């Protein structure tokens, strides 16, 4: 149906056509403004929750709503490795200190030694991701 026919036949409950990006810009009053100003108006409206579902869908269709990117922080795997590396280094320092303390008891030295061995055996690759990668590559070449 043409728009003229739709105007005549429209009744409450009639299915509404999908909105387009231009419709949203017209409703915001920025359809003739530069794109930068248009995007700012859209961002402001989205932030305020001032747009209905149809308008938001139109913006998605036009790729005007981007998924938030974590540009200002490391990727989860690198950040996780750094945190655990810091914890493990701290643990190593504590264990070594406990082992080499002059007045440390034998049980304490034994426990610290066991923890130190555990850390080095299980957590070494986490502390040295690039070394692991190189080692893996060497192993693959040897095969």
């Amino acid at each position, binding site marked *: 149906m*043409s*728009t*003229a*026919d*739709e*105007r*005549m*036949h*429209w*009744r*409450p*409950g*009639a299915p*509404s*056509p999908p*909105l387009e990006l231009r*419709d*949203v810009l*017209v*409703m*915001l009053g920025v359809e003739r403004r530069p794109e930068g100003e248009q995007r700012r108006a859209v961002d402001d*409206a989205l932030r*305020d*929750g*001032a*747009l*209905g*579902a*149809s*308008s938001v869908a139109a913006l998605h269709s036009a790729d005007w709503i981007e998924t938030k990117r974590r540009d200002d922080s490391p990727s989860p795997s690198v950040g996780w490795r750094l945190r655990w590396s810091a914890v493990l280094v701290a643990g190593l320092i504590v264990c070594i200190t406990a082992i080499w303390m002059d007045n440390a008891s034998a049980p304490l030295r034994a426990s610290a030694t066991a923890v130190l061995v555990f850390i080095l055996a299980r957590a070494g690759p986490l502390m040295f991701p690039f070394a692991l990668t190189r080692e893996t590559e060497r192993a693959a070449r040897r095969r």
Partner: protein
Amino acid sequence: MNPLRGEEAAARLRDDPGIAEMTDVERGAVAELASNRFWIVQNVLWGTDEAASYGRVEHDYAGRVVAGVDGALSRLRGPGEEAVVYHAGPAPPEDGVMRGYVFGTLDSEAAAAVSRAEERWEIYVPRGQPLLLLSEVVAADNLTPFEVLIPRGNRFILMSMPSLDSSGRLRLEAA
């Protein structure tokens, strides 16, 4: 009673001095109501479930359009005599109140071309009630021939609606 019809009614509406008095904002609002966004305004006026999902932007937009269109229509003097407008669509609500704008045409053949017989209304617009011939304000390429807009807040008599009872008469109010 010899109401104005078709081309004769259109000629009277073209001569309405109120058209020249309309501001650019009012003309722009009428153009918006005739655009493919008209249903946003109608949903808000009728208070539909869909309108309940609109945000502040949609409601503000509808408010601006309604204010502009009402301002434009308030300038019109009207055709000076009773006029017949043809409309197509389902029967009016049970309470007889059309809460949004009512679009029609002065041309019975144009109405017939877009409707089934049981959906064709023949509306008598009383003397003194303004009518806007849309082609005098917006580009005609998106309009039904002799398409008109009946203002809000006006009362008209529905003289013919075959799908209604045998009298076919219903007093409606465009609210």
